[in-house]
């Protein structure tokens, strides 16, 4: 009997490759060249890491079949014009069954159009801006918290620390940053905080000297703004070099990268709204825990996982869960499963808006606020807000620069 069982197992084992012929093709672009190539890397690693894990575990289970995951991806050069060309190719030529998003709102928006035109599901972790989700789409799903909620934590925290704070909102002139700061301005007004400067700068700005002087002139003591990595890091450095002495600094995206530590003392005290941090601890109903994810990622890439990696990985997990729930890879059935989804992963709770005007926007996931602090003599990020999730106390005001 036992032998028979072994034989059956062996047959099953030999037979598996026949099932393995079935693959799900997922298409996306990443920015291997151009200005977004650093920012894009984290998300891309998240995607690939998920694929490797799923395939190592035998693939995605659909009914009694198992599908291996195959990626087709191209370099979009960080150029929006290329994105549509490449996504069209992914759908028409490479026969992608599902699509993942490129990185950044500016590149995701043109990609969403292709997903709708050809009726393919696209799961988005790279573009947080809401506008593409408000044009009556059916197949878009955003796993991350959208732009208008990025700085709400920062505004709450600031209001608690100093209700009389004077805010300077200075941000990159790109769709994502503008959307984030427009919402933050409203939230700040509602919280009774005073805004003394509200301006955008060109994303190609390299010298923030005049801008920093203007911030100083405005008598602001709290700074909210930035954009993507380059401008955010440069701003932080010049604010420090010119001793603008803000009591509060919140910068988008850039400080969530571990490279930010290279700025040395300029990084200290800077806060960043983050989709996910290593200290975050949710109990996952599906997929790995934070500790498992972080450890395995570290072993594989010899780098710490950050929120772009985690959100990229989550895109895969969400799709996998939806396909398994639907028991099919049919677009409409999977879309229905996504619409009905309400699960908690290590990344947080995931649930999508289903009304026609906001379809696919994330409604459950919460962001945290992380701050660069000295941890055992080295710079590192701590979660400081919301209070129930914090791993360290908020440092306020930022200690004045000394030379």
């Amino acid at each position, binding site marked *: 009997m036992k032998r028979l069982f072994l034989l059956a197992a062996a047959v099953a084992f030999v037979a598996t490759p026949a099932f393995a012929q079935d693959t799900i093709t997922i298409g996306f672009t990443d920015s*291997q*060249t151009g200005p977004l190539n650093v920012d894009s890397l984290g998300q891309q690693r998240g995607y690939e890491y998920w694929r490797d894990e799923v395939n190592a575990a035998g693939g995605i289970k659909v009914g009694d079949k198992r599908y291996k995951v195959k990626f087709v991806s*191209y*370099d979009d*050069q960080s*150029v*929006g*014009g*290329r994105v*549509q*060309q*490449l996504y*069209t*190719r992914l759908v*028409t*030529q490479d026969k992608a069954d599902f699509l993942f998003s490129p990185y950044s709102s*500016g590149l995701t*928006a*043109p990609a969403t*159009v292709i997903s*709708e*035109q*050809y009726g393919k599901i696209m799961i988005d972790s790279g573009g947080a*801006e809401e*506008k*593409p989700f408000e*044009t*009556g*789409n059916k197949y878009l799903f955003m796993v991350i918290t959208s732009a208008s909620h990025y700085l709400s934590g920062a505004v709450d925290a600031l209001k608690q620390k100093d209700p009389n704070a004077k805010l300077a909102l200075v941000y990159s*002139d*790109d*769709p994502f940053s*503008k*959307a984030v700061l427009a919402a933050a301005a409203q939230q700040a007004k509602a919280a009774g905080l005073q805004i003394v400067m509200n301006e*955008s700068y*060109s*994303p190609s700005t390299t010298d923030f000297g005049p801008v920093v002087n203007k911030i100083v002139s405005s008598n602001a003591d709290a700074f909210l703004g930035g954009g993507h990595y380059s401008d955010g890091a440069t701003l932080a450095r010049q604010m420090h070099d010119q001793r603008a002495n803000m009591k509060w600094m919140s910068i988008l995206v850039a400080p969530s990268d571990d490279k930010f530590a290279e700025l040395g003392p300029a990084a200290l005290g800077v806060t960043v709204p983050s989709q996910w941090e290593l200290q975050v601890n949710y109990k996952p109903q599906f997929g790995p825990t934070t500790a498992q994810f972080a450890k395995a990622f570290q072993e594989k890439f010899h780098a710490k996982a950050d929120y772009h990696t985690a959100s990229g990985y989550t895109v895969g997990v969400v799709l996998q869960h939806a396909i398994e729930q639907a028991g099919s890879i049919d677009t409409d059935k999977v879309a229905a499963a996504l619409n009905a989804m309400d699960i908690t992963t290590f990344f947080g709770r995931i649930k999508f808006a289903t009304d026609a005007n906001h379809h696919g926007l994330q409604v459950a996931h919460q962001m945290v606020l992380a701050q660069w602090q000295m941890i055992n003599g080295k710079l590192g990020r701590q979660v400081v807000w919301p209070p129930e999730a914090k791993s360290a106390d908020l440092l306020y005001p930022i200690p004045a620069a000394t030379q």
Partner: protein
Amino acid sequence: MLLMLRRPFFWIIALAVVAFALAPVVGNDVSMRESLLLDALYITLASNLNLMLGYAGYVNFGSIVFFGLGGYICVWLVNSYNWPLIPSLIVAGLGVSGLALIFGFGILRLRGAFFALATIGVIEAVQAFVENFTPWGGSAGVYLSGEIFKPLGGPAHALWIIYFMMVAVMGLSLYLSFAIKTSKFGLGLLAIGQNEDAAAILGVPTSRYKALVYSVSAFLPAIAGGLYFFKSAFIQPSDAFDLSLSTEALVVGMLGGEGTVTGVAIGAFLYEELRGYLLTSSTFANFQLVVSGALLLLIVLFFPGGLMGFIYSRFPRTQKVLE
């Protein structure tokens, strides 16, 4: 016009246009259609740039401004005023042409490298302006709802219609290049390209001709921009005014042979196909810039006449047939 019908080149263009229109229809091949649409776009941009570059000898880095502004005007009319596509396209074309005419009189006082630099200034100034211009969405751009494709029979059907329109624009561009080249206007432009002072002395109204060709070369790219961004259902300043697209159009002109109609068209076709290949090939993806740079350098150094220069010198008889 009737005279043109007797030229074999007239029929060659007609053949090319028909081939473009039919090729993807035969196998209902959507991915071929998408790639040909980009080819048609590049041919349109390069052919119209060639009117300035190849005929009048003016290096225009800002040609993409016409494309971008055309796109913006069209998308704006469709989105904010619910205009149908065709009138929006026509208004975009005429509007941009008019702007170019007014602007041409000022900027075309400059010659050679000064003109080239000024056009870089124009593209940067227009982009920076649109990024701050709220009615056009500023830097976030304008999104069109999926509804806009309904009048054209839904997205799948609309994409075919847009494709045929783009091919038509390409055909018009080629005929325009051909017609101008064989006209008195064209001769005047070529004279300006050879030696502007001499041309003026011989009685060519140089500033009027230059402003006119600047304006004419804006019309079809503006319409192509309208079509392209209507199809994209999304427009933002960084895509609409991409300096590198302008430079690509110049490079294409060089590759094919500036001043020729056939060469520029073939150059555009080959360039876009090569680029598409490099971009998606796993071997070259990381080195596509290096490969295209090295290729361009070799061509500039060793085949300065471009593709057509090479063909003309090898097969002199082709000069009679291929413009």
